[in-house]
């Protein structure tokens, strides 16, 4: 069972607008509530993507690696930190490594979709330029080629 829920730690995300966050986020619709706890209903289609593990506010979700090829005893567990993640990697023989990596340079919610774009939505519609390329393409002119055909 790739992800599993520690029943003592799961509080079903009480008070969360989106409901239980593992149920909300799972890209493969695997997590649901069984009784009053989170539950992976189809472990053989879990890709161990960790979307639920990363989002769980009580760190109740863990991964027991695929029985097909992952021997028991190791663990890889993330913890969100500001603009990044800290990973704890515990080997089967007990050694522990810790790594912290950035995952974004700006806070969630800070993007501004068309900030400063200069293309004219009417005059430039028939041309080949995409929105914002006058700023973001990195070269002055959109390349084209002389066809061999």
């Amino acid at each position: 069972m790739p992800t599993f829920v520690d029943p003592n730690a799961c509080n079903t995300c009480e008070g969360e607008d989106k409901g239980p966050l593992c149920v909300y986020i799972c890209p493969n619709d695997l997590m649901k509530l069984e009784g009053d706890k989170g539950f992976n209903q189809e472990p053989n289609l879990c890709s161990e993507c960790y979307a639920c593990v990363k989002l769980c506010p009580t760190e109740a979700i863990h991964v027991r690696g695929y029985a097909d090829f992952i021997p028991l005893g190791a663990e890889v567990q993330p913890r969100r930190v500001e603009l990044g993640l800290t990973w704890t990697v515990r080997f089967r023989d007990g050694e522990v490594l810790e790594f912290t990596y950035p995952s974004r340079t700006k806070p969630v919610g800070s993007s501004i979709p068309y900030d400063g774009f200069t293309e004219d939505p009417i005059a430039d519609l028939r041309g080949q330029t995409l929105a914002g390329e006058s700023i973001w393409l990195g070269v002055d002119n959109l390349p084209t080629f002389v066809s061999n055909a």
Partner: protein
Amino acid sequence: MSLPNTETIECDLLIIGGGMSGCGAAFESKYWSGDMKVVMVEKAVIERSGATGEGLSAINCYMGQRYGWNTPEEFVKYVVNDMMGLAREDLVYDVGRHVDSSVHLLEEWGLPIWKKDNGDYERIGRWQIPIHGESIKPITAEPARKAIGQENIYERVNITHLLTDANDPQRIAGAIGFGVRENKFYVFKAKAVLITCGGASNVFRPRSINEGMGRTWYSVFATGAAYGLMIPIGTEMTQMEHRFVPTRFKDGYGPVGMWFQYFGAKITNSKGEDYTVTREAELHKYKPYGLVVPTPTPLRNHQMFLDIKDGLGPMYMGTDKAMQKIAGGDPKKMRKVKEEAWEDFLDMTISQALTWASQDIRPELTPSEVVLAEPYIMGSHSGESGAWVSGPEDLAPPDYFWGYNKMTTIKGLFAAGDGVGAAPHKFSSGSFTEGRLAAKAAVNFLNDNPEDSILNDGQVASLRDKIWAPLERFEKHKGASTAEEINPHYLTPYQALVRLQKIMDEYAGGTSAWYTTNKPTLERGIQLIELLREDLNKLAARDRHELMRCWEVVHRTWVGESHMRHLLHREETRWPGYYYRSDFPDLDDSKWRVFVNSRFDSETNEWELFTKPYINLIK
């Protein structure tokens, strides 16, 4: 059980799928579309849906035009050679010339890209730049969500079928599906539809068949919907015989690109031999492609495959030697390279990190097994299956142009990402870019074709019955057996999936068949898949979660059948290392440097297979 209510949503442009291509399309469309209504529908939640939902450790399609690294022309030459001579140069160039703007935008929105001391992007290969990409998908999704508005995004809705116009079956009219979390049908009536759904994992029997079936190389959420939606309405498809067989770290399928290109590691067999050296002569059999640097991906697979077939495995990536060489005995340097090595997996394929930890593999001390995985059918990475689409106005020759960039042969139906055939090596950034290009073209189409599409009420009604039938079938027949899973009246979606995988593995050149097939084997496989397609009318579902699985296996079966029919048509072995036709073992440029295309006719249940020319455009 009575049918649930139907919510009908009318819009100008419907984007199906919220992965990289879909988010690019949503973002781009609203800049140009004025008052038009753009709607996106997604099976999951766009912050973590699609192939990049888990994260990425590199962007693999970046020209670096501002640094003078590459031109789009060079990109086209590289891609065409890697595909053994077959890719649409207009489509590949189109992605190449625009893709840098997408990468720079992603950085602006908060994607951390590795930098050199002088502030330039770091590089791991000619087209590849390393990123701290754990959050690439939420970073991409946010401006898409803001652009089209929360009220226009329908999540947890599984689209099962496209709808065609009541007066013209060759014109798109919308799509239909159901709420995975709500008891409800959704009908989207649209003047243009853009398919940005995924390619197909789990069509072939995977090497890990129990829990590990979820640890496919390509996303397990990629159920072939791009093809399963387009094929049944008669969309012309191309290169559906193509497949990608990734060489990856064994079982966890962790990426190898960084190890080859950045750390400089080599793979050796059990005798310590390097197949790129010992099998060099093999490349001469596949001229001119085999002699170009870099060696095409399928030929590198082929060289390794010959070692494995000769019993020279296991194959090991020399992570230990590579890391020790980089560190040169300096503990500080070793700490840095260890951090980079583990991040490569933790950013995008966490199971591979768990595989290492569980087997006490320390990459700086222990080499790590690699393997050739099961085949995948897709159009965005190193695969080139998908719809046959029009090229851009300014680049496409007449044979490749019919009005609007990325429009399929169905009027008003556009595609991007895995949905577009013969345009590979897009990866995340190129798929996002192709979504943008398709969306802009769709806005032009909508300006030129403002008339409403007309839903075919009979088609909608019969599809509603059909979509819901597995739930009704279960209720009707469950009493015939004391075991829910074993019932003479139905198949569960999991049982159908396993049947599909067995057929594909044994008849279409999967791992157990050493990637090899021939005409009689394919013909037998097609007979069996036709029986499966009939049995798919007897799928049963206990709840809407299983109902989603039912329609996923229907989509995957369309992919499998299409793949086999294309394999049968192409009488050569163009991509050794991906598959072998034992009856036509050679590459034959004189006859087969052409695209294999197909069209399914739902009226007659017949497939038409034919070829389209490869046209060289770049000198």
